[in-house]
């Protein structure tokens, strides 16, 4: 009896998953626990392991296909078994007795897959993504082989059973004492030249390897496959810089009054929302106001059309472990600072916790990237396509400025606006940035 392979539902908000790669060809045999394919959701990318053994009879979707959850994307069964030519689609009704059992089974399995996903996340968090088949892991364990030292030859560099066996067979010859010392001092035997009979590694060789070269030099550079979120970021960045001619304008903003207004509003907003008003929210509000006055900066270039967005939705770049996410705050030109503060804080936390739903990451018309928490002034942000422009925010720093012919110390901030020169030209972009400067230097109109 053939068993359907489902696109797993890995979170309550997951609606679709993108197939990143298949590890098995049609006709290849599959063992329980072996990864069969890798998917990317809006949050993570994960390998999905088989929970039935047999032969991979059918793959209905190719790499990069976006598949709704619970859709049958393939079948595992006995060789020669018949399966439908087309995917039966989402399996939830009773049109097929077998499918029903599979579907019911899948409910439980989904739980399991979620557990697996959790485990995978923990592993990713420890920054040591190790791909190894269960058999490889078992043999490594039985032979006391440190599996991270084994080079995988499977798909995506996965360590397979035969890799571990080869590793054991080809392991450098070393005396028991040398092995222990190597283990205790974390020296990779493969990096040591043995001086004993036939190149056998002796204790003194390990001591020699330890003495002159710091351990850091002995360690090979870590390698990591460009995949998942990193790959998405990489692809999007290269598309943006290669398609949009970027021009970056910078301007110094005097933030004296923003500081004042923040100090005044902070207690009120904190009382209302429980969140502390930060400069980011004031800048979001000011930018939204400026955008509503400059539709060309709030536009999107899609195909050969420039779309002037009616809504002002601000994307806020948020750093997450090993990546970047851009949650979206909607209609910020219409909302007050309290509402923006609450939303920005909540969505920022969700992003850092990797709990954003796809909807919360879609629909931005302009993006703000704030590096003000670092010792950064101006920089050249890359446009979040299909938007027209992006604003980079630097730190606020006290600087001497000339005010009315006298030198005064003012809290200054550099704003960097990158814009797509296909959509707008320098003058309107400069006008927009000047308007933003004007608003932030006279921020009381934000309260109106």
């Amino acid at each position, binding site marked *: 009896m053939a068993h359907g392979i489902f696109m797993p539902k890995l979170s309550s908000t997951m609606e679709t998953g993108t197939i990143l790669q298949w590890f098995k060809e049609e006709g290849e045999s599959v063992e329980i626990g072996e990864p069969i394919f890798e998917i990317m959701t809006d949050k993570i990318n994960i390998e999905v392991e088989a929970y039935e053994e047999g032969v991979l009879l059918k793959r209905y979707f190719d790499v990069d296909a976006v598949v709704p959850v619970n859709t049958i994307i393939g079948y595992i069964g006995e060789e020669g078994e018949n399966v439908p030519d087309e995917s039966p689609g989402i399996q939830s009704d009773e049109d097929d007795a077998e499918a029903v059992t599979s579907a019911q089974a899948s409910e439980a399995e989904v739980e399991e897959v979620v557990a697996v996903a959790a485990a995978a996340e923990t592993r990713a968090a420890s920054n040591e993504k190790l791909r190894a088949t269960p058999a490889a892991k078992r043999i490594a364990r039985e032979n*006391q082989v440190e599996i991270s030292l084994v080079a995988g030859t499977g798909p995506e560099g996965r360590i397979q059973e035969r890799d571990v066996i080869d590793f054991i067979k080809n392991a450098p010859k070393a*005396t*028991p*004492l*040398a092995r*222990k*010392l190597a*283990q*205790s001092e974390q020296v990779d035997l493969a990096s040591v030249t043995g001086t004993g009979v036939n190149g056998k590694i*002796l*204790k003194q060789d390990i001591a020699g390897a330890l003495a002159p070269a710091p351990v850091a030099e002995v360690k090979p550079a870590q390698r990591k496959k460009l995949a998942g979120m990193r790959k998405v970021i990489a692809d999007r960045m290269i598309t943006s810089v290669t398609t949009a001619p970027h021009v970056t304008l910078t301007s110094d903003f005097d933030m004296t009054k923003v500081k004042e207004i923040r100090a005044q509003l902070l207690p009120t907003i904190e009382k209302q929302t429980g969140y502390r008003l930060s400069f980011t929210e004031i800048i979001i509000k000011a930018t939204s106001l400026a955008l509503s006055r400059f539709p060309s900066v709030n536009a999107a270039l899609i195909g050969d059309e420039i779309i002037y967005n009616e809504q002002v939705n601000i994307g806020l770049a948020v750093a997450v472990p090993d990546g970047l996410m851009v949650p979206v705050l909607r209609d910020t030109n219409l909302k007050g600072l309290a509402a923006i503060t609450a939303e920005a804080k909540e969505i920022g936390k969700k992003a850092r916790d990797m709990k954003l739903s796809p909807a919360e990451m879609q629909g931005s018309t302009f993006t703000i990237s704030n590096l003000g928490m670092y010792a950064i002034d101006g920089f050249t942000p890359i446009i979040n396509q299909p938007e027209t422009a992006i604003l980079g925010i630097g730190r606020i720093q006290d600087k001497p400025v000339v005010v009315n012919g006298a030198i005064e110390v003012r809290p200054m901030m550099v704003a960097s606006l990158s814009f797509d020169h296909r959509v707008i030209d320098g003058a309107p972009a400069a006008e927009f940035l000047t308007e933003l400067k004007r608003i932030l230097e006279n921020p009381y109109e934000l309260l109106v």
Partner: protein
Amino acid sequence: MSKKYDLVIVGGGPGGYVAALHAAKNGQKVALIEADHLGGTCLNRGCIPSKTLLRHTEIIESIQEAKEWGIETGELRLSLDKMRKRKDDVINKLRSGIAFLMKQDKVDVFNGLGIIESSNAVKVVGQDSEELLEAGKIIIATGSTPVVPPIPGLDSVSFETSDSIFDIKEIPESIAIIGGGVIGVEFATIFASLNSRVTIIEMADRLAPLEDVEASKLLEKTLKKKGIKILTSTKVERFEKAGEKVATVCTDKKGKEVVVESSTLIVSVGRKPNLSATSKLNLEMAGPFIKVNNKMETSIPNVYAVGDVVGGFQLAHVASAEGIVAANNASGELDKIDYHVVPRCIYTLPEIASVGLSEADAKAKGLNVRTEKFDHAGNGKSLAAGDTTGFTKIVYDEKLGEIIGVTMVGQHVTEMISEASAFMYLEGTVEEAAKMIHPHPSVVESFYEAAQNIVHKLKKEKKLVR
């Protein structure tokens, strides 16, 4: 026309003849010069004759012990002549064995005193002829001779050294042995079994002062049981004639004068290098010895030195190992001496054998070591043999289980020590030693048991790296 050789070796002892054979096998044209008999001190005046006599001691002791086991013989009659003849037979057999090997490997052996004229010429001074050999390279392996200390009165009394003692004609009624080192304690054992009254006078606070303290103590205890008188921390002040006998006048550790009268006096306080061949070379020295590096090279290019003449362990097997290193380097094959694993044996009854560092030496070197001792009283084979004197002690590192040193005392330990040496040389740890299957019953199980005890302890303490 002088004869030309790739390599000329001066001295035919275990350093020189082994080097000669090795260089010849490396394809070198080799000359070996020996003033006396092939085999050097070891074969003619040291290891071999003493072991031959110690075998007699072993049998004498066994016969005495056997009485209690229900095996009785008549009165024990000892013939020193026959014993000496057996000793000479053994020596002659081994000498001719070396001569045969030289011939087989086409090493030219010159009988005469070798005098090194320059870094490429050696003169052989025979009984009534002289010959100059041209040498590409030279190995000095001239060995050592017993030290005769400048103690007042020694020149006016008759005394023996290890060179002369083997050829005495009668079993002495009494013997005083000056020096309780390896040579002294072996002679004490031999002569005690021949019913001489033996006194050992040692300046240090214990016998065999370079060995493990517990081994020294056990040796002292057993030698005393055999009737040997032992004076430690005792300094010899002078010798005097006392009729037919010699009076050795000493000061004991309390400053009290002690006089030991004996019919025979043996002086065994150490050995000094024999530099008879090298007076014309301006060699750099290390104390009284010739200075060499780990390739056995002296300060003069193409001149090597090995064995007792360079000091160090002053053991036959070390000389041979150094000889091979020198021969390889002289043949153009880079080699270096490694003194990491050198077994040391004392053939008293009980025997003492050790390898690596003793506990005290390891601690002096700043190593964090522990020891494990297994007593032969718990060993089946020792009990069956009726000799449970002895122990095996392993000095080890608790983290890696490295065997730092091993000391064994008891019967057969000079054979058993090679197992410990092999583990150390191949860098096996206590874990492998505890796992390897040992024959049962055998005395060497004591090593196995000690290793197992260590592993159990370390496992319990979770100390071992795994």
